[in-house]
């Protein structure tokens, strides 16, 4: 099975160096939890891993093959969940899920498969409901259904529990555990507690160019 690694990564956004000299390595079945204060670059690192932004320096590798050499292939092996849910309001839940699954090889877009995938997040009963009727949490669940409806080894999840209530959060934790048990990898950014047994923790603030102590200035301000 494959290994996903990053070496000496630097990320520059809006003329500012967000992090530099960052290394990581994820084994099959492994997990990485990104933490750090606001603006420390958790989302940026995830987008970098997805190939949405090129690193200013350093490189990503999949089993010793550079990711930048075949971005399309890299796309094929990852699922990315960002801040936006990409749920079309005029399409039903099933249509939404089926569209995204249909873009990937090896996905089963039959209705029964879609219903099963929705069941994983407890929204199988919403299968024929148009997106506009969904609450924020339900939308998020539809978005998360994408990642189980088509297989991909690497899951990149940016604050996936935002807007989820306790029940849905528990469901997501179980799903991630199952994915890892099957040899998948998970990278999660979070401010709150997310259950990820044996996950490596990466604190982004350790890689800032000049570490600032916002906590201090906070204390002074109060």
């Amino acid at each position: 099975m494959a290994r996903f690694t990053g070496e000496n990564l630097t990320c520059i956004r809006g003329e500012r160096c967000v992090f530099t000299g960052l290394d990581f390595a994820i084994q099959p079945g492994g997990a990485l939890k990104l933490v750090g204060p606001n603006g420390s670059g958790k989302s940026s690192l995830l987008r970098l891993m997805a190939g949405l932004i090129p690193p200013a320096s350093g490189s990503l590798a999949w089993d010793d093959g550079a990711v930048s050499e075949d971005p399309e292939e890299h796309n094929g092996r990852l699922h990315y969940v960002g801040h936006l849910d990409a749920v079309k309001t005029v399409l039903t839940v099933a249509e939404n899920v089926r569209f995204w699954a249909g873009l990937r090889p090896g996905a089963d877009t039959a209705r029964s498969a879609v219903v099963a995938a929705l069941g994983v997040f407890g929204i199988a009963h919403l299968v024929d409901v148009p997106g506009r009727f969904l609450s924020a949490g339900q939308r998020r669940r539809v978005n998360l259904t994408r990642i189980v409806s088509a297989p991909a080894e690497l899951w990149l999840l940016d604050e996936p529990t935002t807007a989820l209530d306790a029940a849905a959060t528990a469901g997501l934790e179980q799903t991630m555990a199952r994915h890892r048990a099957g040899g998948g990898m998970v990278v999660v950014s979070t401010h709150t507690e997310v259950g990820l047994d044996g996950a490596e923790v990466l604190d982004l603030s350790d890689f800032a160019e000049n570490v600032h102590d916002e906590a201090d200035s906070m204390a002074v301000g109060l």
Partner: protein
Amino acid sequence: MTRFMHIVRRDLYLALRQGMDSAMVVMFFVLAVVLFPFGVGPEANILARIASGVIWVAALLASMLSLERLFQTDFEDGSLELLSLAPMTLEVIVLAKVTTHWLTTGLPLIAAAPLLAVLMNMNIDGFGTLILALAIGTPTLSLLGSVGAALILGSRRGGVLLSLLILPLYIPLLIFGVSAVDSAISGFAVRPQLMIMGGFLVATLPLCPWAASAALRQALE
């Protein structure tokens, strides 16, 4: 190819479900043309003289207006991000979007043009050529426009900026499109103009999706 059709089918479906997309573009087209008789006055011969020009200008403006949202909604709700992460080249995705755009705006414009030609009192000899020229020209408008639509993503001023970017690029089409119609009305050959417009189409077909994808990648950074 099947994934190309997959995207086209979804976008067509969205356009139909969200309803009125095409209808609105046609209505703008009609409104823009209709403004001229108000502005210029109702004299039939003057209107006939400027008819082909006004219809083409209105078609450019209508196409431009509808282009603003070509990628915008997908960008705002996060779909574009996910599309660009699909295991296929971004160029194909752009081409699928352009195809849908033409089907939902270019085609209806072509269908509405004869009605406007009647309203503007255009000489009947020009009708056939007008339709033919629009049929060759509107896909080029959609292609060129896709580059502009990709460039303005995330900028603060959508519509106005887009117009500045793409209207200048539209001018050659306007010139040859109008000249074809006028030639037809005066009884001259229209082949040369139509050939040139066809050339534009052939040139933009590979170039524009490529440029648009480059712009999209930057917008998503």
